[in-house]
């Protein structure tokens, strides 16, 4: 067992984990944060995307013990104080959600993207989600939602 100290959604946990436990399983089974979904467990689909020290990663191919001393943000931690993150609101409003299984990973990926590129073009937004598979939406409304969220975030920054 490896002792780790990890901050998840702002809460610090000190736990012992078997070396082989992935960050995904630690979040889902260890902390009950089932919003992060397991789509392939091979790093191929992006459904399990979380932010690890601000960077989007596939949590299925990161070991929990590698995250000692790190900060993790999951979909459950994205909305603060009851207010939805603009991405969450835009995904609802623009019809970017169907079965929803890819949605948390998609939103977390875009959260990093918009933090780095607050004023993206649709082509850039499309490239940002190139590693997140969605079988339902054909990606069109997701791209639209990312652009809408960027607009909302700019508006909020001004206000």
């Amino acid at each position, binding site marked *: 067992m490896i002792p780790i100290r990890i901050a998840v959604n702002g809460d610090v946990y000190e736990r012992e984990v078997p070396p082989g436990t992935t960050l995904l399983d630690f979040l*889902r089974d260890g902390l009950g*944060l*089932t*919003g*992060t*979904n*397991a*789509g*392939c*467990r*091979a790093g*191929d*689909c992006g*459904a399990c995307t979380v932010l690890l020290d601000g960077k989007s990663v596939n949590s299925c191919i990161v070991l929990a013990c590698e995250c000692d001393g790190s900060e993790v943000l*999951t*979909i*459950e931690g*994205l*909305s603060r104080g009851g207010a*939805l993150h603009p*991405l*969450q*609101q835009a*995904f*609802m*409003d*623009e*019809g970017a*959600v*169907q*079965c*929803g*299984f*890819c*949605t*948390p990973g998609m*939103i977390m990926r875009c959260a990093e993207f918009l933090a780095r590129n607050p004023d993206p073009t649709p082509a850039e937004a*499309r*490239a940002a*989600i*190139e*590693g*997140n*598979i*969605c*079988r*339902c*939406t*054909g*990606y*069109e*409304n*997701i*791209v639209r939602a990312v652009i809408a969220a960027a607009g909302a975030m700019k508006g909020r920054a001004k206000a």
Partner: protein
Amino acid sequence: MSEFAFIGRKVPKIDAFDKVTGRAVYGHDMVLPGMLYGKILRSAHAHAKIASIDVRPAFEVPGVKAVITAQDVKTGNVGFLQDNPILKGGRVRSFRDEVAAVAAVSEDAAAEACSRIAVRYEPLPAVFDPFEAMAPGAPLLHDSAPGNVIGFKYDFREGDPDAALASSAFTAEGTFRTHYVTHCCMETCFALAAIGRAGSLNFYSSTQIPYLMQNTLSRVTGIPASRIRIRQPVIGGAFGSKLDVYPYEIIAILLAQRTGRPVRITYTREEEFACTPTRQPMIIKMAAGCDREGRLTARKAEVVLDNGAYTSWGITTPHIMLTGISSLYRVPNVSFKAYSVYTNNAFATAFRGYGNPQGTFASEQLMDELAEKAGIDKVEFRLRNANEPGSVTPQNFRITTCGFKECLAKAAERIGFGRPKAENEGVGISGMFHVGGGGRVYKSDGCGVIAKLDDFGRLSIMTGATEIGTGSDTAMAMIAAETMGMPMDAVSVINDDTDVGPWDVGIHASRTTFIAGNAVLAACEDVKDQIREFAAPMLGSDARNLVFRDWKVCDVLDPSKSMEIPRVARAVHFKEKGRMIVGRAFYDPPNEFQGKDLRGNVSSTYAFAAHAVRVKVDPATGKIRVLKFVAVHDVGKVINPLGLEGQLHGAIAQGLGYAISEQLVFDRGRLLNDGFTDYKMLLARDMPGEIELHFVETGDPEGPYGAKGVSEAGLIPIPAAVANAVADALGIRFRTLPMCPEKVRAAVLERDGAARPGAD
């Protein structure tokens, strides 16, 4: 201004909040107290006799609670022909065959135990091609099918197509082959079985057919259907894959019975690829003819289906394939024969479009070829033959509303048909015909709804109509809110429990918004009638003059007379001899079950569409890039533009994948690409550069607010439209799917090689 408060407006999905916040509970998230994890050991051979199975080593793994093989269980089989044993005893017939199963305290322990089960096989000759399977001396898969040909066949005939083809001015024919693709639901399969009081079964499932599932689980396990309760957590995609009951689901029940603890089976992504059924592959021989004026004379098709080792819904896909072949355009003479052949391959089930994409891939390419031969513009040729309102097709389908000509004209105009194009660019078009008002493929095509008005004026829609991500429950809520004059957030939809919702046949055939929508509409009318009955005396109004708006019941003649719905509900409830207002309805559409002659008005209305694409092919690599995609659909009436767009965008992604990139690759029955890296679904950057959607609103008199079904329609014409565009770009007709780069490149080399001798 729209006359409607909600219908036709962009309404976010009612389940979207839970999904964007990570609160939605999927099957993968379900953990019951004491729950065990099930794992299945599968065959190591495409065809073999099982000589022995030693399960003892599995019990050496700590935490193993049960190991079962065919010897341990007595059950019926599953599958359309009930030819698929739950656990295979004497013989395995494909790599996916279930040989043994384990329940253990963790996924890891269950997997480890499976790997330790020692199975001795005696390999048998195997066959992977339906024509080889029919040849004399081929290995026989099931005693019930001599020569491996299954007795369940399709044979339809209208007029005399042979004579009509013989006397046609122009004919075209070809043999078309379609391949294995898979649904790729983002949530892999799961089943969770818990045995309750007196042997009753609580079954958690992402099924599309909760009520038919009760019957099947009962028949196979012997548990009375009255003691089987199906509950559906949020479903992470289905697309037809969950319209049947599969062995793993029964195995979860058997393990739960044996251990007395809840058992959950969750597929890995690799199992999902290797072990779930596919879209039905087909070999289609088709001929079509037309007269000098370009009027279709006949269509003739003979179809061979590679059934795989067992039989699910794949064998019945010719049923819907035939609808397009007989009824897309006006064709006076039609013949259609289809049969299925057992092989040691994967078996197939329902998948969005249900045989119709395969048939349309053939028929719409022949439309292009006939137009070329007749020297008629391809769009004009289609317009001359397009279906019209008020017509009857060879299968006795009664076409009521039909915006097909508008669809064709709009698609052609928006893609720029006939305008100059760059080198290696091409445009293609395809029409589409599909059921749009349910499809009576079972004794009932109905759906029940209970609409309960509570003391706070909130309306709970309780129904068996399942939500699989398409947004059908949002459409139901919109129809309820519109009909009741209520706000959207005062309507909830409860459709996840067979103990609660009235019966529904299942979410298939693009039927749910149409059928369940009509049931909701009728249940709400019942609620309104009950409110009128009570409110009229209270308001001193004639019940016939009461209308519903702004969450109130109002007198249309005297606006001062009105009462808030919550107040009405309480007034009715909290009084002597009080009552609650509960509406109910069961809507079974006015469509017909087809007889053996395959005639009968199977749907109460029909959907039409035209898709047009512009492609650019790189002849040096064979890569096809879709520059622009135009989809024009007769949807009757747009209920929710957001949901409708989503259905079509998603269908375009799946349909283009089917046409140009997706393929399960097998080597003698063994799957070679069981991951997302090598199963090439189109990703965000692979989508067309531009997508245009247009809707023709024909206002179907039978549809809720005029709507027709659309979810499958968006996929059906795509392989044909792309093939026609590629033919336009390269002068090469692809009769085999997918049009992947390597195949396109090979065809370009062949074309240029054939051209070279003459030029040299």
